[in-house]
């Protein structure tokens, strides 16, 4: 894996350029070669026509060529342009002077009037193009004799031109590619500068020289910088809250400690055991309450994964069915599909667990748990968790007191009266609340609302 963004970009651009230019070079070369060969054919055609025009019948009733032809290359041996005239027996009746000492290839001639083009090689391997024209010559006496004109031209010069053209293409494209890579790396520098800036700002935050990231970043990075600042803020808030909680805990434990000390120093130890026990209970309550307080410390805007509401409720229901096996309560769970809670999983478990436990404690047999999606006036999305049972219900005048910490309506049921207070606190920390009413099932119906990030 290449680690640097700019190296990555340069490598991928380089590969792209290579492929792109490679294909371009091939295409251009093919086009150039096609054009060259077409031109070559035209030349051969006109040469054939010129030979045809120069041919004259002699007295012996044969075709002959004049000794000097207008094209000077016929006169120079090995010039690359060769001509031949053959009779019906395929014997050369005339050969241009340039072809002296050479055996020219003899492609088959076609029907009279037909012109053929063939690519061949000479004995020494030189590639050539040969144009062949078969004619039927009508002499003055009316006799018809078949002849074939051959014009052969070496392709050496065309190939040399193509090679030169290719070299030029390579040269220009290499220069172009280098220029482009250079320009891109220059552009990269300016594009990546904000990233370098973020990096150095984070370093100075780590070193304690900055409080947050600045906000002069390009649009694409503004979101990153903002979320980063939220995260830093929430981390800082979290640390402060932890310190605050610890502080609270330590201080609230001091009062019962002082009371116990006072009891121990009393001269008359009468009833001291009860007094100590009462203080111990108080300390226990304080510790429990602090441990189960909501964990919601994440600031708005940074999403948590949604809690798997249905399966977490099922786990709680399974666990509680074990604990309350004697009663074996029937717990019906229904969760609407659009209900989503992006908050702390522990908070959700605590809230649902306490309400369900409570329902199990008071129900006769049936419990219903419903979760639906809600939105409040500020258009914030949330969930409503409704837990109802078929127990004896809650008298209206006691409903509010029930949610107060430490309050228990029936002292005989197990529990420390902290559960519902914790539920209330968790709901409040998610800007929701908890209400009690009478359920259709006959017992109590607790409704807790929780809101998470803005919609």
């Amino acid at each position: 894996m290449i680690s640097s963004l700019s190296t990555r970009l340069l490598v991928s651009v380089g590969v792209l350029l290579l492929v792109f230019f490679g294909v371009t070079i091939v295409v251009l070369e093919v086009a150039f070669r096609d054009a060259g060969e077409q031109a070559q054919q035209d030349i051969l055609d006109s040469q054939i026509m010129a030979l045809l025009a120069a041919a004259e019948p002699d007295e012996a009733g044969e075709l002959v060529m004049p000794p000097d032809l207008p094209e000077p290359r016929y006169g120079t041996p090995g010039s690359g342009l060769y001509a031949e005239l053959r009779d019906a027996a395929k014997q050369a009746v005339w050969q241009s002077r340039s072809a002296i000492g050479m055996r020219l290839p003899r492609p088959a001639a076609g029907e009279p009037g037909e012109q053929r083009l063939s690519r061949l090689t000479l004995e020494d391997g030189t590639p050539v193009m040969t144009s062949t024209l078969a004619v039927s010559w009508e002499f003055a006496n009316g006799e018809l004799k078949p002849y074939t004109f051959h014009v052969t031209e070496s392709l050496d010069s065309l190939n040399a031109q193509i090679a030169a053209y290719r070299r030029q293409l390579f040269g220009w494209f290499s220069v172009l590619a280098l220029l482009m890579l250079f320009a891109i790396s220059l552009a990269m520098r300016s594009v990546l500068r904000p990233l370098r800036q973020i990096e150095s700002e984070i370093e100075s935050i780590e070193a304690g020289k900055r409080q947050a990231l600045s906000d002069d970043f390009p649009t694409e990075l503004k979101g990153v910088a903002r979320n980063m600042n939220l995260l830093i803020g929430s981390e800082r808030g979290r640390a402060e809250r932890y310190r605050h909680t610890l502080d609270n805990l330590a201080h609230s434990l001091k009062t019962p400690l002082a009371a116990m000390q006072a009891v121990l120093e009393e001269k008359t130890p009468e009833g001291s055991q009860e007094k100590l026990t009462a203080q111990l209970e108080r300390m226990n309550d304080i510790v429990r309450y602090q441990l189960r307080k909501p964990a919601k410390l994440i600031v708005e805007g940074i999403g948590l994964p949604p809690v798997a509401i249905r399966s977490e409720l099922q786990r709680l229901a399974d666990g509680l069915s074990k604990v309350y096996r004697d009663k074996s309560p029937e717990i019906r769970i229904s969760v609407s599909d659009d209900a989503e809670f992006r908050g702390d999983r522990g908070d959700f478990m605590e809230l649902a667990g306490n309400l369900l436990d409570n329902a199990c404690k008071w129900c006769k047999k049936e419990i219903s748990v419903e979760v639906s999606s809600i939105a409040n006036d500020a258009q914030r999305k949330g969930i409503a968790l409704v837990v109802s049972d078929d127990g004896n219900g809650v008298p209206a005048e006691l409903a509010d007191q029930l949610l107060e910490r430490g309050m228990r309506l029936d002292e005989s049921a197990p529990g420390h009266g902290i559960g519902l207070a914790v539920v209330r606190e968790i709901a409040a920390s998610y800007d929701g609340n908890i209400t009690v009413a009478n359920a259709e099932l006959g017992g109590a119906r607790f409704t807790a609302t929780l809101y998470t990030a803005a919609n």
Partner: protein
Amino acid sequence: MRLLLIEDDETLRESLAGQLVEAGFGVEKAKDGREGLYFAQEYPIDLAIVDLGLPEMPGLDVIRQVRSEGKTYPILILTARDRWQDKVDGLEAGADDYVVKPFHFEEISARVNALLRRSGGWASSVLTAGPVQLDTARQDLKVNDQSIELTSYEYRIIEHLMMRAGEVISKSELTDRLYDQDFERDSNVIEVFIGRLRKKLDPDNTIKPIETLRGRGYRFALERNQAE
């Protein structure tokens, strides 16, 4: 009834074990997870009380291991962690109930009794067999809807017999239930208590609730009336 108590804090372990013995249970004590697992695998145990935060091997692992070996006796978790996530984890690992530290001994003994009653096959806390009805929560015995006064020793014996109604309970097991372990044992005392119970439950000798099996022990002979 033999209980296994796995708890690493010595003060808590000894104090709890002492109270359990006083309440008539035989108690095996283990000070860490490894030792606890060994006892749990090798000893005949009716119920285990497991602390979750243990040295050597976490309590949850001990519970999983015990359950994976097919042991079905009830397990009661003792934990300082009382968030629902932790409770659910424990119950899913195979425990049957939990008690959160700190606790009153009455909480433990109530849970232990309820778990033992359930593992004895009783679904409700009121055990009913023929005309005999024992409310284990209120410690109240009725025959034909008439309350019967019992001493606490008599109550322990009838509770033990009824909880495992149909099974033969040896004299020595009943003696264990009555006395602290170091107490002088005298099996004649059991015979005396059984005699008294028979008189109280069945003055006319018509329902014959307790059967004597010579040389083997006693059996609560009435058919259970299960609510469900």
